[in-house]
């Protein structure tokens, strides 16, 4: 109840009751949402659970007026609504906190808060406005400096600003889209705990979109489970068990990662990085004096909140970004991140956003599968002549072996789903023997089946003697796959522990440390 006094100001009205009946949305032949109904009672946290592509985002976009539904009704406090614009939803007190932040990066916290105001005056009286904003901040359980520029905020701070922005606008019905995907466990608990408290006090209602069962169990009152655009389950969270919810999400027994070869042997040191420093796009040091070593048959997991230099580290290892200092060796030989060295030393990469970082979008699946070796026999003769038939049959073979779902080897890679793009890249990177495997966020946005399969493949490569460097923002993934765990914060490795001795609290504390 400690926030009660402060919140009287933000939400003078009770949150509305939002009832959705038989909501349907089609995109061409695809029915993204098929007659889904749910009611969010005032002052509750209602979780929307489902895998990627289950229709969660489509549902809330219809609710916010971004999409126009093809059928069904939305009632806010009993009155039917036909929204065509997020601003109208805003007027009714419905606010959305997006997964991809919708803050303006070059503007200050104060400017971002003022931007959304419905009655933004033609000329802004900054001294008065800032005074009001400062009072608002003081009444909030978490605070941000009004003058900081958004591009300099951490992901957690941006998330807080998004929520502050909605509360500042007087939203009484908040939709949180995967709010914790970029937060440390502590930040996630803090923010979700706060949302739940506000709801319990009857100040706001919350729709929590998530695929994390732990969050739903801890913070939600009711849950609606979606699969393939249909409602497949609904009820009080307290009545449902974790197994029930997984079964509803996946439609069958939950898949498990095959932890093959738990008795795998760790060999000699393979990948070694000494004193590596890398600048980010703004010329600021993003990776500073980083050193690490990975042995054969070992997974070194690097945990950390996004934006602490992980992407720059991977880009430097991939040759996409210049290093400003340091040395990398593989099996004792220097590695300058050239294509020839990657081939000779068998260094393989599965970067994040593989469609952008590891594929040529305008090329076919078979061509993408041959990108590492198209200029060698048997795909190339006399150094320049490409044998397209060989490339195609090689593609067909890998597609079958790695279960890539595609219309065929000639389909453009861009037409594949995220999981199948990931399978394609993995097929290319793993099929010819691998000594060093560098993997970043390999399962981001994939469904549970693809996740289990891709994790099993990574562990299989390790069991075959590869040194695996896993960089992931998903702490559960790090804990599941790693033999050793390190935490990256502000461009440095700040904490290292064997998997067996790892504690979630300890790792979380180092992730949050600044």
């Amino acid at each position, binding site marked *: 109840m400690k926030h009660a006094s402060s919140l009287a100001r933000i939400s003078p009205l009770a949150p509305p009751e939002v009832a959705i009946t038989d909501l349907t949305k089609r995109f061409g032949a695809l029915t993204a949402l098929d007659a889904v109904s749910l009611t969010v009672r005032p002052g509750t946290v209602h979780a929307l659970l489902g895998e990627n592509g289950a229709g969660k985002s489509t549902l809330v976009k219809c609710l916010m007026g971004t999409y126009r539904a093809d059928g069904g009704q939305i009632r806010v406090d009993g009155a039917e609504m036909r929204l065509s*614009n997020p601003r109208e939803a805003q007027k009714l007190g419905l606010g959305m906190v997006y997964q991809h932040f919708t803050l*303006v990066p*070059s*503007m200050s916290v104060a400017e971002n808060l003022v*931007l959304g105001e419905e009655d933004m005056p033609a000329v802004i009286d900054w001294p008065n406005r800032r005074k009001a904003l400062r009072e608002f901040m003081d009444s909030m359980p978490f605070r941000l400096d009004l003058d900081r520029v958004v591009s300099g905020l951490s992901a957690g701070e941006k998330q807080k600003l998004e929520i502050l922005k909605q509360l500042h606008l007087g939203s009484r019905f908040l939709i949180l889209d995967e709010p914790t995907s970029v937060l440390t466990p502590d930040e996630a608990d803090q923010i979700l705990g706060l949302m739940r408290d506000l709801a319990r006090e009857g100040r706001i209602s919350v729709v929590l979109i998530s695929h994390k069962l732990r969050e739903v169990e801890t913070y939600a009152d009711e849950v609606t489970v979606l699969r393939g655009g249909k409602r497949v389950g609904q009820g009080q969270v307290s009545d449902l068990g974790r197994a029930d919810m997984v079964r509803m999400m996946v439609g069958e027994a939950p898949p498990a990662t095959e932890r093959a070869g738990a008795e795998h042997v760790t060999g000699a040191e393979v990948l070694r990085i000494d004193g590596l420093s890398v600048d980010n*796009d703004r010329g600021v040091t993003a990776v500073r004096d980083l050193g690490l070593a990975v042995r054969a048959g070992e997974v070194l997991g690097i945990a950390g909140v996004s934006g602490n230099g992980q992407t720059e580290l991977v880009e430097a290892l991939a040759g996409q970004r210049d290093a400003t200092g340091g040395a990398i060796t593989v099996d004792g030989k220097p590695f300058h991140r050239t294509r020839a060295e990657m081939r000779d030393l068998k260094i393989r990469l599965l970067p994040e956003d593989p469609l952008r970082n590891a594929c040529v979008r305008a090329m076919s699946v078979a061509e993408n599968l041959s990108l590492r070796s198209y200029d060698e026999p048997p795909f190339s003769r006399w150094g320049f002549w490409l044998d397209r038939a060989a490339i195609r049959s090689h593609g067909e073979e890998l597609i079958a072996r790695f279960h890539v779902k595609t219309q065929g080897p000639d389909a453009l890679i861009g037409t594949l789903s995220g999981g199948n793009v990931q399978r394609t890249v993995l097929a290319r990177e793993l099929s010819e023997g691998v000594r060093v495997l560098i993997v970043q966020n390999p399962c981001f946005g994939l469904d549970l089946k693809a996740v289990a399969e891709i994790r099993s493949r990574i562990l299989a490569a390790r069991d075959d003697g590869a040194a695996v460097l896993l960089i992931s923002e998903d702490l559960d993934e790090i804990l599941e796959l790693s033999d050793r765990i390190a935490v990256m914060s502000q461009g440095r490795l700040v904490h290292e522990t064997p998997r067996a001795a790892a504690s979630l609290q300890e790792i979380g504390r180092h992730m949050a440390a600044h």
Partner: protein
Amino acid sequence: MEGDAGWLSVLVAILGGAIRVSTPYLFVSLGETLTEKGGRVNLGLEGVLVMGAMTGYATAVLTGEPWFGVLVAGCAGAMLSLVHGLICSLPRVNDIAVGIALFIFGTGLAFFLGKAFINPSAPRLPSISLGGWSDVPQIRSALEINVLFLVGLALALFIAWGLRNTRWGLVLRTVGDSSEAAEALGYRVNRVRIAGTVAGGFLSGIGGSYLSLYFPGTWNEGLSSGQGLMAVTLVIFARWDPIRCFYASLLFGGATALGPALQTVGITANYYLYGAAPYFLTLGLLIYSSSRQHALAGAPGEVSISR
């Protein structure tokens, strides 16, 4: 003694030239700043500049009223930029390509329509003498300042203030920095961008009228020597800041005035080489402000040159 006075007069001549020549740079760069703050690049401003010069001159010839010419030039520039804004609002249209097309179209149209106005002479825009305190004729002529220069200075200050302190300014910057954020807030991205482009075209048209109605003060086909294109570079150098646009315009103006200034003290060798000073400056500044490591600081996020 003689030599000292000579070099002093070179400096005065460069300063005077900078003030005289910088005005079109200033107007076009402020226009391009408005356009790019909204997230689009309008390379067609060179065409807009020439079109503004022609319509401004023609109007002044026909009505005898140079200030009316300035207004018409601005409107012609706005119309031409509206074409750019509308075409770029169509899906999958590249603003750079449209800009180049507009550049060629604008200059071609101006030459075609302006044939009849090469001979008649138009009344010139008035200027203000700020050099009355000095006896030196060079200083007096250097401080003969056109009203449009002062308007440009005031505009630079106003735009800098407006981008921070007005709703219009914030919305324009939002649209230019993150269309996703703008859409989530319910702003119509294309409309705001068209407005920014049109406002930019209006200013650039006025910049053109300065060329034909004040300095050099005639209309012919060789009037502009790429000022419109160089102003785009200047915006990058000025990091999308209107105040810095003002300083950068003076710098470019000074570079343009280098050749004539040296001529006043009798250095006539390499005249055309000095005449190329602004182009060297453009190249030099682009190399200086580029980096293998960093993205351009201060660039609006949605502008295609910074993506």
